[in-house]
């Protein structure tokens, strides 16, 4: 029980927009929990503003978004912007869902760090987070 000042990663998993398919988000949430992360799960039908507000209150290191509705080109950048508006541009945003390959460069340009397509293993998501999402600095 030696006290390690090691940060536990906190990741918000959210479903923006109107589609009601949260099975994927739940599987990812479970996989991240099993990887030792603290997952804040906020449920369906989130607006980008709701997601950003929760991310700030929960002081998460990353936000994972799941979208099946086809509205990713609007909603992903909207979440990035909403975080910026709340002074939380240091939160890493990633996501997945039914997203055409061609849209990935546009999403990355808008500030989304990584996009996972159908068929991505949960392990690949965990590995990417371990390599790319860093625990927060001490001062906000």
């Amino acid at each position: 029980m030696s006290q390690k000042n090691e940060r536990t990663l906190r990741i918000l998993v959210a479903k923006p927009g109107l589609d009601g398919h949260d099975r994927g988000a739940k599987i990812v949430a479970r996989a991240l929990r099993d990887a030792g992360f603290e997952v804040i799960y906020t449920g369906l039908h989130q607006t980008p503003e709701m997601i950003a507000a929760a991310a700030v209150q929960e002081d998460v290191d990353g936000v994972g978004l799941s979208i099946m509705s086809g509205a990713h080109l609007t909603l992903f950048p909207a979440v990035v912007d909403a975080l910026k508006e709340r002074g939380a541009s240091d939160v890493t945003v990633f996501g997945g869902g039914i997203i055409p390959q061609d849209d990935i460069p546009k999403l990355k340009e808008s500030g989304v760090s990584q996009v996972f397509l159908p068929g991505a293993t949960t392990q690949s998501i965990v590995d990417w987070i371990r390599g790319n999402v860093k625990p927060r600095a001490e001062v906000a």
Partner: protein
Amino acid sequence: MTGKGATVVERVRAGDIRAAARLMRNLDDGIPGARAVLRELFARPGHALVVGLTGPPGAGKSSLTDRLIAYHRKAGRTVGVVAVDPTSPFTGGAILGDRVRMQDHALDPGVFIRSLATRGHLGGLSRATSDVVTVLDSMGKDVILVETVGVGQDEVEIVELAHTVVVVSIPGMGDEVQAIKAGVLEIADVFAVNKADREGADRTVKDLQMMLDLRRTTATRGGLDHDSVHRMTRTGSEDPHEAGWWEPPIVKTVATRDEGMVELAEAVERHRLHLDRTGERKLREVARARATFLTILRDRLMQGALNRLAEEVGHLDELAARIAARSADPYELADELARRL
């Protein structure tokens, strides 16, 4: 908002969400600098009333919390929420899902919701819960709702943190024998029987009523009440005929339909008035201070002891292996270490 040059303490007291959220994180992660900030906040507290909600998993604690937030916001009070969910003992990870039931308040600037994982702490809360409550109090919140993990019978730590404890039960959880058991049921200042539209709600109310009747009866027999001797914070009168006696009300609720919520909130409010009238609020704050102090002391002593152990006696894992093989004696080792401290 305060300017860039403001200290963390100033920013938290000004209600800065980012600063407060990061401080909570640092406290949860045991970052040494956060302790110093907490010390400063501790010196000049806010005025928040702390209400705890506890009960078994699935009883509806989050939904009740959600409705209580709505009630207090309507009355113009700002609200802080701490919701605790369990950490997996195997992976150290956690899914914190209490916010799902509180989405109506996601964009309300008068509501701050924080999810915490137990991180191996037993007792229904997490090690940092009390610290997070202190931060919310310093932010100026009027009411702080603390939702424990789903508890069984013995996770009663919430009594050391809250001014008022609401124990949530649901119909069909157990017969009257359950109701006389010690533990969670004893710590209630207010009972909520949630999902009261289900069959058996009246029976549950009756069982709780019977338990309270028993308590009243035994309490009149001149201080022989086993419960009262061992209760940590029941500091009011032990005599039901005295003004200091508090009889926990039982309120039927259906949180998802917003039924019984005004009655529940009013029962909590009556308890607050009772605390103020009898002076018990102060006594409960002393009890909380006592628990806080003992926790800090325990952590410090334990850390000191473990450091000493590693430096002078041996590696914990090796000692554990020797103890398991019976080539070392845990009592003797502990005594030896205690003498060195």
